[in-house]
């Protein structure tokens, strides 16, 4: 049995940032890549994105406190 993980309603939207956007995020948080929250390269949710180690993934998800929130993770 297989199904599309990234289309499941419980899996929030994952998308890849391009270099420019990634730099913006890092600058905004004044943080280096190693201090960012991580996501595994093998994570099923980002399999389709063809992410490389060091890329930043943007995750838009529903939060019980704030409605829609954006979270960033670096691929490791």
């Amino acid at each position: 049995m297989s199904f599309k993980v990234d289309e499941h309603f419980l899996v929030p939207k994952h998308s890849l940032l391009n270099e420019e956007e990634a730099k913006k995020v890092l600058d905004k948080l004044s943080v280096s890549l190693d201090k960012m929250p991580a996501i595994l390269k093998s994570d099923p949710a980002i399999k389709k994105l063809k992410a490389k180690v060091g890329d930043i993934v943007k995750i838009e998800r529903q939060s019980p406190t704030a409605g829609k929130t954006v979270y960033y993770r670096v691929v490791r």
Partner: protein
Amino acid sequence: MLQKKIGSIDFRILDPKTIRKMSAIEIKTADTYDKDGYPMEEGLMDPHLGVINPGLRCKTCGQTMKHCPGHFGSFELVRPVLHAKFSKKVEELLQCTCKECGRVLLDEKEIAALKQGFTDTEEIIRKIKTKTKKKKRCPYCGAMTGKVLLDRPTNFYFNKERIYPSEIREWLEKIPDEDLELFGYNTKIIRPEWFVLTVLPIPPITIRPSITLESGVKSEDDLTHKLVDIIRINARLKDNIDAGAPQLIIEDLWDLLQYHVTTYFDNQIAGVPPAKHRSGRPLRTITQRLKGKKGRFRHNLTGKRVNFAARSTISPDPYLSINEVGVPEEIARELTIAERVTEWNAKRLKKLVKAGKVFSITRPDGMRKRITSENIGDVEKELAPGYVVERMLQDGDIVLFNRQPSLHRLSMLAHKARIVPQKTFKINPIVCKPYNADFDGDEMNLHVPQTEEGQAEAKELMFVENQILSPRYGAPIIILDEDGVTGAYVLTMPQTEIPKEKAWQFFYEMQLEEIPKPDRGNNYSGKLIFSQLLPKDLNLSYRSKTCEVMEKSNPDYKCKGDECPYCVRIRNGILEKGIIDENSLGEGKGKLVDTLAREYPPEVITNFYDKMSRINSDLLTVKGLTVGLEEYEVSNRVKKVKEEAIHEGLKEAKKLVKKYKEKTLQLIPGRNRHESFEIKMMRLTAEIKRRVEREIMREKLEIVTREKPELNTIIMIVSGSRGSSLNLVNISGLWGQASVREGRPKRGFSERLIALNKKGDVGAEACGFIKSNFMDGMNGEEYFYHSVGGRQGEVDTGVSTKVSGYLYRRLANSLKDISIENDNSVRTSGKKVVQLVYGEDGIFPMNSVKGKGVDLEREIFSIKAREGK
């Protein structure tokens, strides 16, 4: 002070070369002191190892006791011994390497594959172990392999033949660096042959000081004792070897040396009998010194004893402010605060000196002087700005008050000290809540911040009145409960009228400056008295708990909205109608305290609480809040309803049982036949109880509305201060179904709960249904059923406090270093990002309205009120 930053710490294993290099002197003899009491040269107490007598200078570094850090010595073992703590590592290496050439029992291909395939060292080691186990011959030198066995903790066997530490050491020396890297060793720092000790570092005497008892007898430290043992055995072993003693004797002595070295490091290794002191007490050797709750880390480093602290039993005192703590005079006399003399306080402090309330002074040049009865007059004259006095604790000093377990930040709060003549700490019972304290013998700790900065910080951040709102959900957690709610309830009941004289006493206790006119002839209504505590611009209206309970238990009763005599309306600080109950004062639900805490400065709610607790204790003392058995008597009508409900219920139950046995029972979706039956039986018994409950509540509630309500039980239930209708029904109605883990009790004898029932009987009465109540008493079976359920409750409380306590501790420990940065992000102490915005919405729950940033409804309401509509 010179500040240095630690760049890095690296842990490694001492090698023999380093041990000898750092050694100040080689120890050669087991003697400590000679006949005259002087330390022996080259003995365990050699002065080269450091000084412990004041005045003497260290023979190694030439410094005095205060400055000499102590120096290590060394001791040469005639035969090597294993370090027991590393025997597992040794076993691992011996099992995977060749005895002849020391290489790993894998050929080059296998090694390359391992290096390619895995990055995790532990994974690699596991793989090597499984692979080498099958090898019969070394792939490099062709030697036969053998089975290496470790007989814990230190004996090794190769093909069932004992191998001694010297052989093991030779073996380990042969293992090449490249092979060790496979096992995760950094061979620049560590070589496995160092696991076998040839030379022992002797710790400085500062680590193992000898104590001179009053009788003049010198008593040595446990570590010294152990070292003496090691040196003695070593000497005996050496003598025997030199004398050419038989191998058997030498091996015995060798094992003995091994035993002593092992217990020197750890006296609690499984399989090794602990070394005992002469008195039979096990020795406290190195591992024991560091390990566990009483070890160096948890006892001396993470937690320390402090000065300026006190501990005592606590007792209640409703006449104290919630901000205050009563400190017994005897404790206040011991606790001191340093205060700097200035132009402005010189006069006051001089007076204190004269009164004997100052214990010492410090002159501007740093000279300290104790005040005695002789020099008290001189000191008083001498005192001038720039001096610092150490005075005893006095009224109004800021102190920290704490009760263990300190589970949350409210477990330690700042109070104003108030010196009381009694012998225990006193607190207002309202502040029991944040500490989770009661007065059945609880003890609490008190700390006195010494600097002005510390006092200011404590006052601003930890003062009780600044901590009334919960940081978890932004509603008051310091609340009036139990007696507090009952008192407010009794005061604000529509019937309550209080004679002028008594009311004036209340006003005096409230410290009112203006006394209102009586509103009921010569009497005051309770509501008017209560209103005096409210701010003049307060406007509120909401439903009271009383009204809710009334409606729930009486189908004929309907809340009349604006006209309802029980629902609260406060206009311009006057309680126009309604009863103050849990919906005004309760935790999370209390609209009144919620508004007071949120919309007014903290003094307002503090004032409210302080005055309320004074009136309450007075009011309830006079009224007498007590219950008697007659409160639980019920009318014949209720008894009849109960009989009926039980009769009908049991009839229904019988039908269910029949259906169940005939397998015609309607199933509940997702449940099997048995589960469905059980659930239906539970529902049935619950319905019986509900019917009785409704009837009893209807009867009892009527009494509250009478001229003189005498029933305190029902007052407590309706006001929500303590107890529920369920408790009342258990006493005067019926207990109902006994339950174990959310179901009917079923374990016991085979197919029945107790021996009195028939086998296979699944009817209500055979499975824990209790018709009786506490007033009538239960019969034998019922008592048994009840005990079964009661036991589970007892076990649950015990287990859940234990489990949740430990769980909480682990959670708190892992989260304690996480903090919010200036950019609102949540980060670890290493500045790693946890959340981009705190809580994802950036809202601090303490300042929120039930989790929301703004309470729109309330804002609109208050804007309207301000506009005058």
